[in-house]
């Protein structure tokens, strides 16, 4: 599975709300999308990666975003990025349950518009409570929550809730309604006629990757993963600007979970919702989050930062501990692999003549990579023996990485797993474009780190066109 790749601006301390729009394609696609109301406003805020970034006064200058002049400049310079405003503002909110439990304690968060904010933390740290305060299923004891600048208590609770899709673990589908009718629930409540609501439901089934043949089935006839997709479709049915997701994928097996995460990212690329996503799985948080809020037991905020920053500079020992031991390796997911210097010298195409073989063998690499007629990797052969002398014994190449699209982490992984210590880079069609040694990857990692530390991520961002788009496929 490929890693998502989000490129975030700013070093430690400048985390707030400036984000590199993870993918150029996302913007291009969202721009043509026409939806009524807020959706349009929000989607036009995204921009094409190659277009000159425009400043969005509402987005940048809104109070509380805390952008410095440098941040602003960097935002303009960086390529392929979106600038988001704050949609949901949680202002020193505390929740004390009647039994005296303090579930959330003085929490302040600014949830950026049109991106995924993940709440992560150990069990019982108040994630669900926080999420439910946003749609008022739980009323806070003190503090305020603002939606688009207005206190959420100002509008009728049912209106508020219908503007927020809600997805939970085990989907929580209505067992007595068919899949289409489950999805059509909110549109029906909003007064759509049955035909239109069902049409919309079928459209959404397609969007979340469900076979239309399932439409007339009941939930018990679906697998857990399919039910979860229905849950997402149902939450999206009335095109709400906000999606609240409470551990939506934690009840399915890891493989299905990965595909659901990928699907969510794909849908998000298309729709650009403001998503608040609760999980206790830090890997999931890093994988899908544009911003990650780490909560500690007792409902206190430990850190609120983009995942990249979380990995590179955890705020304290608790966060560091929560992130686990291999955060250095995981952070490599945020570096693109297209800066790697690939070499084609040790690559020997099918039907190569003896001269080519000799050149490949002489390239200095201990092994040469043989490819088939389509250019796909076949296996490694020892350079010394010379591949010309009959069919040599081939070492497996393992999984290659897609150059440019996958991250340095993928490249490193391939190199580590490779019996020769060399990673094979391929293009989208699986054709070999070159090979790279562990040493070369190590050098690339060091220079990527150095580039980050200089506070000038622009170069990295340029190279790092590897995006979530790629990660999803």
């Amino acid at each position, binding site marked *: 599975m490929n890693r998502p790749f989000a490129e975030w601006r700013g070093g430690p301390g400048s985390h707030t709300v400036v984000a590199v729009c993870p993918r150029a394609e996302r913007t291009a696609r969202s721009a043509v999308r026409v939806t009524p109301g807020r959706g349009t406003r929000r989607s036009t805020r995204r921009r094409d990666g190659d277009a000159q970034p425009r400043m969005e006064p509402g987005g940048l200058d809104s109070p509380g975003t805390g952008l410095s002049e440098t941040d602003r400049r960097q935002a303009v310079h960086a390529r392929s990025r979106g600038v988001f405003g704050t949609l949901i503002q949680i202002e020193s909110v505390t929740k004390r349950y009647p039994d005296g439990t303090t579930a959330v304690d003085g929490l302040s968060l600014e949830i950026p518009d049109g991106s995924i904010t993940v709440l992560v933390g150990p069990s019982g740290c108040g994630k669900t409570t926080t999420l439910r305060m946003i749609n008022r299923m739980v009323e806070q004891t003190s503090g305020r929550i603002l939606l688009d600048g207005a206190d959420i208590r100002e509008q009728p609770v049912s209106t508020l809730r219908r503007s927020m899709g809600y997805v939970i673990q*085990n989907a929580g*589908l209505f067992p007595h309604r068919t899949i289409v009718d489950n999805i059509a629930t909110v549109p029906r409540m909003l007064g759509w006629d049955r035909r239109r609501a069902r049409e919309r439901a079928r459209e959404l089934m397609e969007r979340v990757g469900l076979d239309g043949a399932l439409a007339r089935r009941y939930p*018990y006839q679906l697998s857990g993963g399919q039910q979860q997709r229905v849950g997402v479709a149902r939450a999206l049915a009335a095109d709400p600007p906000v999606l609240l997701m409470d551990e939506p994928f934690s009840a399915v097996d890891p493989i299905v979970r990965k595909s659901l995460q990928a699907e969510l990212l794909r849908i998000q690329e298309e729709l650009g919702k403001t998503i608040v996503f609760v999980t206790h799985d830090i890997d999931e948080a890093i994988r899908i989050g544009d911003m990650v809020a780490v909560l500690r037991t007792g409902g206190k905020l430990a850190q609120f930062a983009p995942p990249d920053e979380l990995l590179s500079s955890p705020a304290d020992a608790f966060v560091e501990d929560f992130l686990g031991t291999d955060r250095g390796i995981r952070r490599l997911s945020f570096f693109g692999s297209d800066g790697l210097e690939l070499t084609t010298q040790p690559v020997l195409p099918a039907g190569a003549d003896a001269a080519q073989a000799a050149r490949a063998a002489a390239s200095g690499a201990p092994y040469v990579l043989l490819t088939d007629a389509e250019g796909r990797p076949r296996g490694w052969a020892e350079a010394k023996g010379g591949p010309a002398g009959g069919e040599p014994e081939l070492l497996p190449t393992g999984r290659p990485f897609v150059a440019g699209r996958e991250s340095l982490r993928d490249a490193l992984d391939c190199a580590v797993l490779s019996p020769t210590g060399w990673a094979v880079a391929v293009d989208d069609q699986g054709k070999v474009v070159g090979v790279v040694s562990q040493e070369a990857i190590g050098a690339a990692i060091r220079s990527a780190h150095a580039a980050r530390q200089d506070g000038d991520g622009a170069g990295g961002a340029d190279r790092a066109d590897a995006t979530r788009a790629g990660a999803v496929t």
Partner: protein
Amino acid sequence: MSGGAGFFDIPSDLQHSYAGLIGIHMQEAMIPVGIGLAVALPLGQLCVRFRWLYPPVLWVTTVLYAIPSLTFFVFLIDYTGATRTTVMIPLTVYSLVVLVPAIVDGVRSVPQDTLSAATAMGLGPVQRYLQVQLPLAVPAIIAGLRVATASSISLVSVGALIGNQGALGNLLQDAILYHRSNLALNSVVTIAVLAVLTDIVLVLLRMALTPWLPRSGKAAGRAARATAVEPSTEAALLEDAAS
């Protein structure tokens, strides 16, 4: 009045044909169940809403259930006379002891996730009850109804004690009076057949209302049996036959 009278020859003192007796019997059995359901639905919902209410309600219905119908008749006859109403009032009370727990358990068994999802979608308490809780409680409610109707159909017979208000049950008295054992047999067989047929109708109704239940029906049947307070032989037999 000779011993040679046929199986379906009803003594004239009952003033009804065989079919007429069946009609009266079903009426006396089903009206109490209907009223019981009408009372139990809101009562059950109140018990779900206010948890503290359930134990006392359950206690009262159980105590009432323990009162023999004859005691009810003695008490009621001063007010409602030797009428069908006098028979139907205790039957209504008895049906509550089955229906209230069936409804409460049924509504409570709706998964919390499903309810949260409904709430999050902006459904108010009433919509949630009508659109989610009630439809999902249907299997449990029908399981309760099956027990309630079966027992009601057999209990109508005791109405014979207060002057021929027992419909088919009156045949038992006449069997003794006229020394016609075939009348007793007729009464027992007819009541049993009625109970079985009603049960079949209820099972069909449940199947029609719950296309969303897993087809095997095993789980549903188990849940239904667990909900039923009183074991009913006919009902249980039929359940296995039907599912």
